[in-house]
């Protein structure tokens, strides 16, 4: 076989053709959305043993706070169940049980042995707490996907919808629900509602903070906060504290009047933490602020951590303010001065709110710990001892 001799013009034609193909390939590659994931993980603890429940993407896991291992499933004799390969079966609800479902909302206990699991695929599932089996595999239809935690009072569950407002679902028992009301919006509600004294408060991406009658869903008031709202309002001393993408923290009275505001350098997405008379907020520019709420939101200190900013809620415990940045760094700051005490680098984007687990004799937890959820499913959880930053475990190990 003889090699084909290409003249410059033939080479040129072929180069152009290859160039065109390259363009097609690059365009196809670029067609992948920069970020196809929807949202970050949500966590909660349930029961006396303070087991951690985390919802992220296609799964919900139950993890031991002691060692970060999956909670084993037990058979009727109380022995650990094993799969065909002899591995211990652990507590997990995955989209193998409910096809196509994604989970970003932490489960809620609705009966002694039943969990409520809101999903992104516009369904509510109920799960047997002992077996991790989904009771209603078809799910209860709701008018939108849920991507963050729900709130509840008695048997009514207030579900924020990614597009379409808030829906209140009443649990009737035996995996049955009924829609109590649906407050429709064009835009989404991306943070858990707050329910207090018969009023549901929530911020929406449409820039408004809403107050609704919890019983009827009737709008009591709304206030425009000049930018999207991605966090749950904090209720403290009859005032609501909420940040917005307008780069401001607002203080709002319970009848919907803006009482005070404080300007930051960047969007505020996380819920402020309040301890004593100080509010702690973090912004997406990477700054942390401590504000005196007894005195016109005067700035006590400010710490600029830079990087890609802070989405998650700051966490205040004892003398520490803990913040998790998008850069993968977890900072322990002095609550009184804002000075950095130390940090831990997880080298993966951190967006979820950190989870504090306080010491508990019943759970066998002697020291307070903080659990950080990452955006990497292969290193989903990392736990540190709160006072010294000692790494306790990672999940999966």
């Amino acid at each position, binding site marked *: 076989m003889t090699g084909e*001799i290409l*003249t*410059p*013009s*033939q080479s*040129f*034609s*072929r*180069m*152009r*053709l290859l*160039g*065109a193909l390259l*363009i*097609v390939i*690059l*365009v*196809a590659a*670029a*067609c992948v*959305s*920069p*970020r196809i*994931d*929807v*949202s*970050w993980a949500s966590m909660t603890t349930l029961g006396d043993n303070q087991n951690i429940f985390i919802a992220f993407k296609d799964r919900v896991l139950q993890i031991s706070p002691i060692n970060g291992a999956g909670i084993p499933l037990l058979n009727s004799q109380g022995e650990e169940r094993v799969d065909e390969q002899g591995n211990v079966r652990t507590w997990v609800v995955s989209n193998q049980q409910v096809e196509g479902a994604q989970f970003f909302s932490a489960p809620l206990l609705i009966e002694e042995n039943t969990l409520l699991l809101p999903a992104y695929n516009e369904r509510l599932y109920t799960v047997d707490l002992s077996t991790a089996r989904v009771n209603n595999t078809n799910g209860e239809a709701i008018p939108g996907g849920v*991507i*963050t935690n729900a709130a509840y009072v008695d048997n009514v569950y207030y579900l924020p919808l*990614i*597009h379409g407002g808030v829906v209140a679902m009443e649990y009737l028992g035996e995996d049955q629900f009924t829609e109590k009301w649906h407050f429709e919006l*064009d*835009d989404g509600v*991306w943070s858990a509602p707050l329910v207090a004294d018969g009023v549901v408060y929530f911020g929406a*991406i*449409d*820039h408004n903070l809403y107050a609704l009658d919890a019983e009827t869903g009737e709008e009591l008031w709304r206030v425009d906060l*000049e*930018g*999207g709202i*991605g966090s749950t309002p904090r209720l403290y001393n009859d005032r609501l504290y909420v940040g917005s*993408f*307008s*780069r401001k923290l607002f203080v709002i009275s319970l009848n919907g009047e803006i009482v005070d505001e404080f300007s930051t350098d*960047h*969007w505020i*997405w996380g819920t402020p933490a309040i301890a004593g008379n100080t509010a702690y907020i973090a912004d*997406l520019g990477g700054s942390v602020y401590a504000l005196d709420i007894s005195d016109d939101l005067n700035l006590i200190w400010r710490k600029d951590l830079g990087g*890609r*900013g802070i*989405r998650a809620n700051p966490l205040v415990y004892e003398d520490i303010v803990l913040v998790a940045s*998008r850069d993968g760094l977890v900072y322990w700051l002095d609550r009184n001065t804002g000075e950095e005490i130390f940090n831990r680098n997880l080298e993966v984007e951190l*967006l979820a709110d950190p989870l504090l687990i306080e010491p508990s004799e019943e759970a066998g937890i002697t020291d307070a710990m903080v659990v950080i959820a990452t955006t990497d499913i292969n290193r989903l959880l990392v736990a540190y001892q709160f006072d010294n930053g000692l790494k306790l475990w990672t999940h999966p190990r």
Partner: protein
Amino acid sequence: MWDLILNPLVTILTALYSLFNNDIVLSIVVLTIIIRLVTWPLTAQQQRSAKQMQELQPKLKKLQEKYKNDREKLAQAQMELYREHGVNPFGGCLPLLIQFPILIGLYQTILFALASTPFQLVDLSQRLLVPGLDGLIPINRFWFGMDLTLPPTANPQYALLLPLLVLVTSWLQSKLSLPTASNDDDGEPNQAQAMTRSMTTIMPLMFGFLSLSFSVGLSIYFIVSNLMTIFQYGIVGKGRLNGLLKRGNAAEGEVVPAPKGAKKSKAR
């Protein structure tokens, strides 16, 4: 590196959205036109280079015939021909390489600006270079009853017109912009021409098909971008555009009947 292109584009698109009374489609159209105008000299250079190469094709063909058994001499003769006519055979590549990141950036800008999930909005928060634009977020994603962030299949049925328009405009655009090749002496299409024909069929079909799964906002961008290219060829290569519209398709290198009285030249 992408941030250097993306962040200013996202900021400009958001500013246009503010300027055009929160009409994101008009903003996408205007931004696409602005970018195509800014890159006009590059596109024009690319088109000129292609046109020059096309004009040299008969002479190149003769040289190939003449030196078909001597590759080295053929290469020398061709380089001499290029030099004589002041043509750089690779002159169209550089403008294309410069334009490409900009066009991909524009494409991604639309994806970022139409952020509709928390993950996407967190990303968007880092891309707005002017603080006063925060209040415009989220950008209204609805247009004539269509959700611009969803594909046509998840929108009202009339949204399916958009992939069709993508297909038609892509076909016209690729017909004009893909390399041309002349027939062999026996009148049969040569290999390059066959490939060109395949490309002009496959690419539009592929883009039309992909548009079924792209968001509606991106389909609008593709249509405007294609129309701009067609318009540009209309300005730079008017004859070629005319040729496209004729049955005897000169743009594809088919033999165009010589005018009456013209002498036939014999191939040597």
